[in-house]
């Protein structure tokens, strides 16, 4: 193909030529200065991080960071051999940090059981189970409490039974009734006690961690401080056997074992909370085996494909049509038309979607009322699908409009002139000359837009929330796409959230869309031509 050329920037009175001049200013000393400044700053930040990491003894991280910084410096001072790297490094570093790492994280989560009930670590879970399985014993008492030091400085609890008013002194050895008159309490507050110094303020607050584990044994139960002024008699119902790593129920000796899936279980009974742990391919196999997940998958997939494809094709066609139509040289109001046409793009998407939802209401919405029709835009399964595509196209057309405008500029006039001289009509010129050249630039954009709409959670969620429910599936509605279906299944789902399952489905969706893209790439020969 002969070299096509880019036009020289506008020459309308020199107003627009300041920008190219500004850009080319960077090719001189200014650019060099900026480059050095950025490089120094980058190295400085790396050194800062290395110092902090050294202080935290993170040797591996230090080694990695030193190697990376050295590598980058070498590449930038490496001369001609490493020129491509110099251009690519800034973008790649950011890409790795903020796009690739989340992907890695998602993959990691898909191999865990991260879900409701399995959110914290194992040690935390054990501690929480111990706390939450305490129970007030029969006739368990509640006390008003004051924390004090006795004459020898030991920590004691001064207690008053809230029901009977009797006073006690409690230590970690046991409870002893207080001599009458020893403890002076009024209005439910222990004010003073002879021979004891009651702690207040910071002295008391600093003891919080000690008080969390302080127990005054009373028979099988114990009195535990709850707030700064109350204590409650509680009895453990489970005991943790650290050697065997199991919980034993005191009442009947039932043993709750680690089921390797993040919970302590005994038969059908499960202790809550569980903890987050790796479960291998369990999430992936549940996708294949669980009918709840599996059955609507095919129909949802087909609709997702149709939705993405329909949106892209319609938006591109409309955007291109508008770009060509409104691109006539010298036509009046061009700027006005263009400015108005990008407004759908400029307004926050979810607001437009919510407003469209109201407009398309079949009984009260304006659309049905203006045209005196009664199409159930959002209530009927098929019409809802049409509505999704139409509204999505409304949102996406401005993007393709602007892209087409820019891309049309890259097609030099001589080519179209030559074709016209050769006797081609406008449609022929378009099909044989303009469109192929346009597709060269925009094909990857179309594929990318397809992928974006394939995963376009927002457009579906805010317009129809995946509805209407058809009853074919208990979770997927008529307009649910794979990603919103995943969301409903795993985030807003049955027993709470299941991020592990959601991640696994996400990975499968990715393979699907990557596969489709790879096929499109090879069919449109985009890679061959462009690369």
């Amino acid at each position, binding site marked *: 193909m002969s070299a096509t050329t880019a036009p020289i920037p506008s020459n309308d009175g020199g107003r627009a030529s300041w920008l190219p001049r500004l850009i080319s200013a960077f090719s001189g000393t200014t650019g060099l200065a900026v480059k050095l400044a950025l490089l120094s700053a980058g190295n400085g930040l790396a050194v800062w991080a290395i110092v902090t990491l050294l202080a935290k003894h993170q040797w591996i991280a230090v080694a990695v960071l030193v190697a990376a910084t050295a590598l980058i410096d070498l590449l930038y001072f490496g001369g001609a051999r490493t020129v491509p790297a110099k251009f690519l490094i800034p973008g790649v570093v950011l890409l790795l940090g903020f796009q690739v790492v989340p992907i890695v994280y998602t993959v990691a989560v898909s191999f865990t059981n991260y879900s409701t009930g399995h959110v914290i670590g194992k040690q935390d879970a054990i501690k929480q189970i111990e706390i939450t399985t305490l129970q007030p014993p029969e006739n368990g008492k509640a006390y008003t409490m004051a924390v004090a030091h006795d004459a020898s400085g030991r920590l004691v609890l001064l207690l008053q039974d809230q029901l009977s008013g009797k006073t006690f002194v409690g230590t970690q050895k046991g409870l002893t009734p207080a001599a009458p008159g020893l403890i002076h309490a009024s209005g439910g507050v222990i004010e003073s006690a002879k021979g004891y110094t009651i702690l207040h303020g910071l002295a008391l607050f*600093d003891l919080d961690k000690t008080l969390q584990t302080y127990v005054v044994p009373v028979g099988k139960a114990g009195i535990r401080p709850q707030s700064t002024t109350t204590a409650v008699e509680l009895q453990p119902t489970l005991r943790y056997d650290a050697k065997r790593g199991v919980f034993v129920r005191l009442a009947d000796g039932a043993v709750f074992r680690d089921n390797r899936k993040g919970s302590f279980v005994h038969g059908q009974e499960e202790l809550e909370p569980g903890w987050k742990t790796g479960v291998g391919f369990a999430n992936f196999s549940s996708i294949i085996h669980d009918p709840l997940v599996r059955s609507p998958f095919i129909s949802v997939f087909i609709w997702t494909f149709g939705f993405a494809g329909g949106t892209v094709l319609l938006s591109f066609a409309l955007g291109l049509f508008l770009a060509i139509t409104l691109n006539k040289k010298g036509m009046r109001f061009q700027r006005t038309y263009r400015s108005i046409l990008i407004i759908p793009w400029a307004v926050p998407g979810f607001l437009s979607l919510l407003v469209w939802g109201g407009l398309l209401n079949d009984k009260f919405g304006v659309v049905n009322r203006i045209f005196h029709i009664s199409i159930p835009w959002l209530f009927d399964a098929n019409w809802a699908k049409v509505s999704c595509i139409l509204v999505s196209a409304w949102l996406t057309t401005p993007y393709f409009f602007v892209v087409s405008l820019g891309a049309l500029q890259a097609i030099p006039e001589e080519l179209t002139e030559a074709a016209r001289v050769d006797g081609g009509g406008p449609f022929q010129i378009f099909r044989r000359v303009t469109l192929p050249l346009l597709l060269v630039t925009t094909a990857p954009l179309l594929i990318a837009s397809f992928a974006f709409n394939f995963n376009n959670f927002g457009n579906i969620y805010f317009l129809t929330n995946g*509805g*209407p429910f058809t009853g074919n599936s*208990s*979770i997927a509605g008529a307009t649910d796409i794979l990603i919103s279906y995943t969301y409903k299944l795993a985030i807003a789902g049955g027993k709470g959230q299941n991020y592990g399952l959601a991640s696994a489905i996400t990975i499968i969706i990715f393979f699907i869309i990557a596969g489709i893209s790879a096929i499109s790439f090879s069919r449109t020969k985009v890679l061959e031509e462009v690369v």
Partner: protein
Amino acid sequence: MKSRTRLIALLVVVVAGMFAAFAGSVHAAKSAGATLTIWTDQNRKDAVTTVANAWAAKNPGVTVNVVAIQNFTDQRDKLGTVDVSAAPDIITAAHDWTGQLAANGLVEPIYLSAAVKKQFPAYTLNAFSYGTAIKKLYGVPTQIENIGLVVNTKLVKVPTTFAQLESEALAYKKAHHAAVGIAVQQGSGGDAYHMYPFFSGLGGYVFGVNSAGNLDPSNIGVASKTLLAHASLVDKWNKEGLINSAVDGSTAQSLFLKKQAAFWITGPWNSQLLEQSGLKFKVIQVPKIIDNAVPFLGVQGFMVTKWAGVHGVDALAQDFVANYATTPSAQVSLALADGRYPANTTAGKQVTDPVLAEFGKAGVGGVPMPNIPQMNSVWGGLGAAWVKATKGSGATKAATAFKSAAHAIAEAIG
């Protein structure tokens, strides 16, 4: 060239050295004294700050740090991933989060004294209780809310029976060529919460209660016998246009405000809107259909997180939540700042706003929304059943709709 390279290298080293010096000088500040971090949302921030500061004044040495999370439900969602340095010790919570947060091990049990417990209606404490084996209280209620039937008293008479409600609504609808008789919101996504009075009035329930008094997710009453027996009433309402699922939130509001409907089912969040509208209205409970048509009850309050213990402020957090926030004065200021009715009955007696009081009365006998994680599966299915059954022309028969919803929900819960 060589000298230039040396110059560059020098420059780089100097700048790097400066940054190294920075690194050395950055210290983490340690605050003296105990700090209690409370999360709440934008609406409640001022009220919570006032109450918390009043409590802190009684506990010298404590600093209270109230953080406004933008979205109320974000508190629940962020609690699982928040870093310990930024984690809250106390959060304001909706009662239906209890099951999820407790199952995740993110909140601490709270023990109230008998005297304090007496000041709260049993269902409010129940709403914050959860436990598969042992039921524990995980939160302290501060305010309650429920929807009610708002009647435009200038246009119609306040109905005392459902039959009267039906005939008045239909008569008004006919006279004004309106779209519906009662403005209650559903929309294409459905709204089981707003339709609940009709649901409970027909004898439906969500989860039954087992012998231990706990919610039983295997006992789903979405297609209960009583409901199915009287499902034909729904078909009748649909046919005569009493309710229609095309009405969404905004539409219901505008129908009532523009006097195209004389009845609106909504909650206290619209109380000021109603007061400023200039319309004369009264809020009542939907009259009994087969059973009492009670609404869902929402209870909100405070919960103590597990980080309170990690931060070393556990006792303080418990003191604020269990001892101070339960007092009538705190309850009143917290609830009224949010435009809701306080949970504490003594505090409730101090409420003078007539609209709030009416909403409160409309909630008598109401059912707290189930706080177990399985509830998530119910909203969509139940809402969809109503949408299908009240679609207008082409609606599914109610009995069929509810039966398939019950089946779908049972499947989703597993």
